């Protein structure tokens, strides 16, 4: 069995299984975009949380924090 036709016509696999339509490819791309967005929600929030915590907390990161912590 050959996969490609020697006469330069389309491969056997392409003749048996129709290529994905433009609509299918658009749906596929949209779905992948949604999945990437879902993943980004968690990762971006993680980034924002880390940056916010660092920006807010870094001015307080000094020796006083360790040896002269406010008591009340």
């Amino acid at each position, binding site marked *: 069995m050959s996969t490609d036709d020697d006469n330069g016509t389309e491969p056997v696999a392409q003749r048996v299984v129709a290529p994905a339509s433009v609509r299918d490819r658009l749906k596929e791309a949209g779905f992948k975009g949604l999945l990437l967005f879902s993943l980004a929600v*968690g990762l971006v929030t993680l980034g924002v949380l880390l940056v916010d915590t660092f920006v807010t907390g870094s001015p307080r990161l000094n020796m006083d924090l360790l040896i002269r912590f406010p008591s009340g």
Partner: protein
Amino acid sequence: MTLTVDPVQPSLGQRRLVGAKPRYGERVIVALLALCALLSVATTVGIVIALFVPTVEFFGSVSIWEFLTSTEWAPLFQRARFGVLPLVAATLTITVCAIAVAVPFGLGSAIYLSEYASRRTRGFLKPALEVLAGIPTVVYGFFALTFVTPLIQDLWILPGEPPQAFNGLSAGLVMGIMILPTIASLAEDAMSAVPQSLRAGALALGSTKLQVSTRVVVPGALSGIVAAFVLGISRAVGETMIVLIAAGGTPNFSFDPTEAMQTMTAFIAAAGIGDQPTGTIGYKTIFAVGALLFVATFVMNLLSIRLVRRFREVYE
């Protein structure tokens, strides 16, 4: 070469396999493992008893009907009111907000990691996402109060007043982010366990990756996905620190997430810091609310077991 068997001696299969000497070490290990299993059961029984006794005493003083149906909650005031519905409403409202974030985004992340990401990408993205699960909840609480609430107030475009400084919405959204990696990770594990042959079969029939993901992999892993959802929801119901910091301490019978509200766990934490003298009705209130929370999570776990069994797919 020929093998001969002595007719007098039993064959190898008939002989009993007996250890050369008693294995005492092995017995000790088995006993230790049994003790470990017993310890967790004993702890659960201890918790139930510790909750049950003060709860029964509480319902000796307060009508169970008033507790479950009244909409005013002020157990520590001079004129005490014991309607738990405001706490239940707040718990439900914040849990729904958390689920609205965690379930779709967690499932989306799981499908991407399982079906679309390369092995290398998955090896980087999954641990990065799981970092979110390791952040202390007190950090999430302050993040909700100092970052998310002002952001929502600034960007508020919906009709009505923007959220108050303490509100259920930011607590719920941040709680959703907190449980997102739990759902994503467990659901991804369940999807990875679906046999590759099912994917290959669907692709060979001409399915697109979208169809394979949504019609083969997700249904095939539904039992694990449902278990991930229920575990995430249980975490949301039992979460304390975020709601204590960001949602406020006002028992408010409302399903409006933009208002300040107090959940069951937040009440237990606020009232249980040692101000209530032992044996008072205020002290016993903590146990009554704890018992209600215990029953709610217990029922949810029973439901999840039924759901997991209902959707379980067995592959050989």
